[in-house]
């Protein structure tokens, strides 16, 4: 597999050629809102350089509204339908590396050997995942502090680096290499490779925080007073998890619609009061404190214990969007600082 470059003025034709073989999924620009991952169609402006704020790729792989079962009765007969997504080759472009790694986290939940979610699997299994390294890193990223990003790079099918007037294209897997079409690509110059390496180094140094390299799952504590501090200001909006690329909790609801019933999947979050509310009225997480603790411990401790992955990939969306500025980077810095350890132990 050899690295290539593609000039930006050939991207339109490259995408058109890809569309002949694949369903192309990319962030599509929207007015006043972050770009959203969609199957691109006529009139869409895909943003494949990673330069703009975007919704997470999970919105495509795990839609906010997905009908799982539809039961309709007609003329006395009952018709049960399970509308699985179409099985077709897909390529996903313009994915931040943090989001690509978050898909690996989702894979552990939805493609686990003990239970494969057929809806997720249909979209995921024949997917070629192309991550992009934008020309400018976002201020909120802290990827390199949560995990080994060199490893993340091995988990995608190809990497693209924005070099200004061209992209550096680095196939990682056979699937990624299959995207390279001689007509659009050429060999990189030494300067291209140097610039690509520079971008990668920049990424590795973005958001380098005091907790980098620490085993977070060993440092977070159930009885840390910080959960109470977060809970005091947290308004329980749940945006941190709705906008999180790796949060995967969902709800299943049944709804009567005329002569049919649909069972659908939609989002849910541990930040909501009714997430753990039992039918009989008891709520094991009765206030915000255990809810705030749950999200962090789940990402950094439980998912590690369960699947051997870190459930947060440092994409920074919650850092940017939290309405009360609960900054996960600060929380992790504090929970991992020696001072805090002493305070808890002492």
């Amino acid at each position: 597999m050899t690295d290539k470059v593609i000039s930006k003025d050939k991207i339109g034709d490259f995408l058109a050629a890809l569309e002949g073989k694949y369903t192309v999924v990319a962030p599509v620009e929207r007015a006043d809102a972050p770009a959203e991952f969609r199957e691109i169609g006529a009139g869409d402006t895909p943003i494949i350089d990673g330069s703009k704020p975007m919704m997470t790729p999970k919105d495509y792989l795990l839609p906010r509204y997905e009908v799982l079962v539809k039961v309709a009765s007609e003329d006395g007969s009952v018709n049960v339908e399970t509308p699985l997504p179409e099985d077709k080759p897909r390529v996903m472009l313009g994915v931040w590396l943090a989001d690509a790694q978050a898909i690996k986290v989702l894979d552990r939940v939805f493609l686990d050997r003990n239970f494969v979610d057929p809806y997720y699997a249909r979209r995921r299994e024949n997917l070629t995942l192309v991550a992009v390294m934008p020309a400018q890193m976002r201020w909120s990223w802290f990827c390199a502090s949560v995990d080994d990003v060199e490893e993340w790079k091995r988990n995608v099918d190809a990497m693209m680096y924005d070099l200004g007037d061209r992209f550096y294209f680095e196939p990682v897997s056979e699937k990624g290499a299959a995207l390279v079409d001689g007509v659009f690509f050429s060999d990189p110059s030494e300067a291209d490779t140097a610039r690509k390496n520079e971008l990668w180094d920049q990424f590795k140094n973005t958001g380098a925080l005091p907790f980098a390299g620490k085993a977070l799952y060993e440092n977070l504590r159930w009885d840390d007073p910080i959960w109470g501090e977060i809970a005091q200001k947290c308004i329980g909006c749940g945006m941190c998890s709705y906008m999180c690329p790796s949060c995967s909790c969902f709800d299943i609801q049944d709804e009567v619609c005329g002569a049919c019933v649909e069972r659908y999947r939609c989002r849910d979050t541990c930040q909501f009061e009714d997430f753990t509310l039992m039918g009989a009225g008891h709520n094991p997480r009765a206030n915000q404190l255990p809810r705030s603790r749950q999200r962090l411990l789940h990402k950094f401790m439980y998912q590690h214990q369960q699947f051997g992955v870190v459930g947060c990939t440092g994409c920074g969306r919650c850092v940017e969007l939290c309405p009360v500025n609960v900054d996960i980077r600060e929380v992790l810095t504090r929970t991992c600082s020696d001072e805090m350890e002493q305070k808890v132990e002492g």
Partner: protein
Amino acid sequence: MADMSEIQTRIREEAGKALESGEVGVVIGWGAGSVPFKTTPVFIDKAQDVEKLVWNPACTNNLAVYLPKMARDRKVGIVAKPCDIRSIVTLIREKQVKRENVFIIGVGCAGVIDARSLENANVRLSEITSLEWSGNDLIVTTQTGTSTVAAADSLREQCKVCDSRTPAICDAAVGDAVPRSEEISIDIPGLSEDRKAYWAEQFSRCIRCYACRQVCPACYCRSCFADRVEPRWTAKKATTQEAWMFHATRAMHLAGRCIGCGECERICPVGIRVVELARELNAIAKDRYGFDAGNPEEETHLLGSYRDEDFDPAQHSE
């Protein structure tokens, strides 16, 4: 006019006095954020901690959202901008907070910033070290120098049209009265013929996180219609129709109650212009019933009062 650091010092003094005298057990205010263009709510319960309170153009949060829970059975101090105070007035009028349970440190305000606008004005957020108003301009200091951004490119939208810049009620006034600045025109689509298409597009983006509701000081219902299962008013699925039901119902619930602080719009992750709905309903309330939400001189609620001369929609079909 007192500059921002003087006002900050005065806020700390007033908070310290209220805590030391035992008048309040806690003061809710803004503290330094994790980045210089944000602040974070802080809850100060010791006089020596008042140094944590800050006042700068990023003091955006409407802290009144914490009052219904925190001031239920004790007196709390709160640092509040004029718009936040209008929220407090509404909470008092609606008997969610007792007037005697709040100690308001009222701050005159020239407006707060919108980080997204700054980004659109090509300010590199990561390089900001401090922000300060100077007249109608925002002075942005970065590691490499200072630059000036016009108010039109840095203010939050509702601050551009705000006409309540001086606290309507308070227990300690901090800073001078802030004169009404020249109104900066903002783009409000208004009731045009295609408003149905406009809102359909807006609501199609809704991810149903309900953050707009959670951040809203007027949305204090213990049990929200949107969470009800029996009857189910609006389904949880993210479709335009269901989102429409949620936002339209919420807007009606806020008629004559929303004071336009714009928190809902600030935090919407998909940029839905939620506050436009409330602005429209409040304009109707003012036009037809002369009611001004959040104004302490109003004697009652919009929906809780009747006068013979009130506009009767049944007789004025449009």
